[in-house]
């Protein structure tokens, strides 16, 4: 294997784990840009819904139906959380909301631990993604990892279409920018905020299921993922969906490269050193909005 092929292999490997970071980062960004709240429960919510999906798979014995059903459950769970838990503290300072999300983190962690226990479980992979690895040149990728990248791209395309080409998407973006003006033009802002949480939870659930499929299903599986996803979101710019994708992928690839060329002991550290350096040069992240306006 020559040097370029080795590099390409690491990029591909990094891109697949990075795709999971990107998906979870997207979920974080979707809530942040509309409410300025970082949802620290994002990872545990994804983990919890993945356990629900495990239960579905057990009883339905069909992966994709369970996959779709879980997304639906997560969607409504996310919306319900916004209405029942976040809305009552919405008027208070943002820090209150953030503490509430930390509370939700603890709630979902404990619930999952109590209900499903500490032992990791094998999460079934869909048949279509369990075949032999695919090799192009001398770069190899497992079908599952390829599937993860494809699913991440599909989510990205769907959300891009929603935000940029639909009236609903325009209304969601308007709500994120100026809730009062949005209400005055007739947008139901409360509904948009609930919808933001619902979509975010649904996207997070996909991230959770993909994580479980590539590792194992366990209560703590999202802890490290959330940290990297968060790093990816910040690297990309916390209010930019495109930034979340690029940031998440970037973190995954940096991690893989650092693990290969330096040492797997320092992959995390090396990735973060680069992130910190980027943020020093561009405090709003790679795609973050620099606030330019005349007053």
């Amino acid at each position: 294997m020559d040097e370029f092929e080795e590099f390409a292999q690491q990029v591909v490997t990094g891109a697949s784990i990075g795709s999971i970071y990107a998906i979870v980062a997207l979920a974080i960004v979707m809530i942040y840009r509309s409410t300025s709240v970082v949802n620290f429960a994002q990872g545990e919510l994804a983990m919890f819904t993945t356990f629900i999906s495990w239960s579905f798979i057990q009883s339905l014995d069909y992966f994709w139906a369970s996959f779709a059903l879980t997304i639906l459950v997560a969607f409504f769970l996310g919306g319900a959380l916004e209405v029942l838990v976040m809305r009552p503290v919405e008027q208070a300072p943002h820090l209150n909301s953030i503490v509430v999300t930390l509370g939700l983190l603890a709630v979902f962690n404990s619930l999952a631990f109590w209900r499903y226990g500490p032992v990791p479980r094998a999460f079934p992979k869909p048949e279509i993604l369990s075949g032999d690895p695919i090799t192009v040149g001398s770069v190899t990728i497992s079908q599952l990892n390829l599937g993860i990248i494809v699913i991440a791209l599909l989510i990205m395309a769907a959300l891009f279409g929603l935000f940029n080409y639909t009236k609903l998407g325009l209304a969601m973006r308007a709500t994120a920018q100026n809730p009062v003006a949005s209400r005055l033009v007739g947008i139901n802002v409360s509904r948009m905020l609930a919808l933001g949480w619902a979509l975010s939870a649904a996207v997070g659930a996909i991230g959770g299921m993909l994580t479980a499929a590539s590792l194992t299903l366990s209560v703590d599986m999202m802890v490290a993922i959330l940290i990297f996803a968060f790093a990816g979101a910040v690297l990309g710019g916390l209010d930019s969906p495109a930034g979340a994708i690029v940031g998440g992928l970037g973190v995954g690839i940096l991690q893989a490269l650092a693990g290969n060329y330096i040492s797997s002991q320092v992959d995390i550290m090396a990735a973060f050193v680069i992130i910190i350096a980027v943020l020093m040069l561009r405090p709003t992240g790679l795609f973050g909005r620099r606030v330019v306006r005349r007053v």
Partner: protein
Amino acid sequence: MLKLQDVHASYGPVLALRGVSLEVPKGGIATVLGANGAGKSSTLRAISGLLHPSSGVIELDGQRIDRLQPERIVRLGISQVPEGRQIFTDFTVGENLRLGAYARNDRDGVRRDLERVFSYFPVLRERRGQTAGLLSGGEQQMLAIGRALMARPRVLLLDEPSLGLAPLVVREIFRIIKAINEEEGLTTLLVEQDASLALGVAQHGYVLETGSVVLHDSAENLRRDDSVRRSYLGF
């Protein structure tokens, strides 16, 4: 016709309106004058649904609207140009105007109204693709008015359109407000600090003091009355 009867409202424990009654006849312009904190903006916020009255009645053409949410009220035909303009600064001028018509579904009508807004404010056509936050203050005010017009309202509420603008720009904006009212018979309620300016375009004037109407007369009488000018209007 827009009618407020003994409207009370508060922000938490702070009373903002203590029994405001006023009327804007169909096709007319009325103005609400008063010092800072007199309740001018709160009156408009109560009408548009952003502030819910604790008692009193607000009616649009005989229909009670004081318990409705803003997103419902704009669909009934009341459009507010809020204090400080509140445009969508990250969106383009075009997107801002499109959002103004959010509550409507008649594509052809929206397209016609866009042309209409551009005819009142030609500069908005030129700046159509520009980020709204980069417009000058005067252009932003024009955009805020244009956005409100895109909802094709029956009643237009204007909150301090002169705020922070150069006198020349203010004069231009008031000329257009007057023109819109005359050409389309759009019922207008104007809140303004600059009393002489407001009384110049309005037919009726209300003076607010600590949350209630202390004086109400035709704009012409208010303009002429020396004692009124000295004690309430400061010009």
